[in-house]
């Protein structure tokens, strides 16, 4: 560790960088977005199709 500066003087990490550095948050979003918009939405549309009358 550098240990040269006090905590208060440490450079603030930009919010976007914190977001980009959080790989597990990106993993959660990267799974959730396609599952919701592509998979679940698509399957729900198929499930709600009317059944062909016998």
């Amino acid at each position, binding site marked *: 560790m550098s240990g040269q500066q006090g905590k208060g003087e440490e450079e603030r990490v930009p919010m976007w*960088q914190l977001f980009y*550095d959080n790989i597990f948050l990106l993993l959660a979003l*990267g799974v959730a977005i*396609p599952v919701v*918009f592509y*998979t679940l939405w*698509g399957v729900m549309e198929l499930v709600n199709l009317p059944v062909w009358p016998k």
Partner: protein
Amino acid sequence: MSVPTAFRTCPTTGLKVHLPAENLIKANAVVAVVFFLIGVAMALLVAMTRWPAVHLLGDEFFYRALTAHGINMLIFWIIFFEIAVLYFASAILLNSRLAAPKLGWLAFALMLAGSGLVDVMIALGKADVMMTSYVPLKAHPLFYLGMILFAVGALVGTSLFFATLVIARRDRTYEGSLPLVVFGAATAAIIAVVTIAHGAIIYIPTMLWSMGIIEHIDASTYRILWWGLGHPSQQINVAAMIAIWYLLGALTVGAKPINEKLCRTAFVLYILFINLASAHHLLVDPGVSSTWKIWNTSYAMYLAVLASMIHGMTVPASIEVAQRRKGYTKGLFEWLKKAPWGNPSFAALTLSIVIFGFIGGITGVTFGTEQINIISHNTLRIPGHFHATVVGGTTLAFMGVTYYVLPLIFRRQVVAQALAKIQPYLFGVGIVMVSLGMTFAGSYGISRRHWDITFAGATLQPAVDPTVYLLLGIMGIGAILAVLGALLYILITVGTVLAGKKTG
């Protein structure tokens, strides 16, 4: 702090190399090349059948070879190589130990058993279902079991990548943010999780259906879930390929991204939006609404396309800046003229960018539009597109990085360097001819998968424009060149591993 003996220091890069990780990288890379060889052999058979002047195979063997070609190339070759890339990017580039190498070997064994099972089933004629294996086409249950085993193994390998990132951060083997190449590999790993999960969700019930335990699988639902595997599996390639572009830029000319924030933003756009593009395979399917199609393939997909355009600009820009810094500043293009064209890795990088961007990218974006998709769907335009992205883009990039992996990981000097210099050009020119021949023949309405373009013996004879025969001839000659380039790559890599001079 004592350094564990499980590490060696690379004399060229100074990187600390975790030996168990190195062994896993070697194993995955070698097996990847073996599956590549199978895929190449099948490619030749398929191309020589689709070339009407040759029309080599009968219908049964054509579909068998097509199934083997698709699965070995698009799944086994690429994913084995990508697992090697993930271990390299996490353990080697971060100077870290690989998490749980024994689990890595378990993952490798599962993937090998699964892929072997699939190939045996295809060879026995029990799985002539092509890569998509659309129901109601039915394969032997062991085919689906093989795919499931492979998917589970790949998921374990991907999990080790994430675990290694945690270890590296905890052990402070790097400062600040992940290096860009590792961030790109992380993007590929995140996309892989979505891909493999969809594979498990669809292949488990399909296996039960083929065993007779489940009575019916809905074809539309199968297609949605299967394309949650099929398309993202190619997006893993895109992310891994672009990570390799940045790596090769640095290794070949010392390029550094001119704006790393922008490059990271482009990777994040991939993570968030690229998998939605799976919907463009379903643009002519009747079950899903236009709203679902337009949202997923237009608004969302264009954000991922934007990401590709950013990478397509930033990588060449970083190369130009690096070259100009070396003093190649005369005129507009001295930097390009004086680039190391004799370095096979640089040649592969450049061809990969051009073929992926100009042929693969442009064709792919147009297919994402409903109006164009309706006329291009299930024509040869589709394989024309993905041979430019996956083969001209990803495979060429993987070939390029191999020429660095051989001395750095296998510690062998590349043999037959004169042949290595021409190999990317031979392969690249061949695949451009394949891609353009297919794309333009597809524009004349030639079917994507049919064994015989003339539909000989059918009651209704489709009109085939004579130009198509010329275009498919270009495709056939291109395929021969590409196969020669691929065989040269295999010979050089195998020759280097077995007989290359040791580098220390």
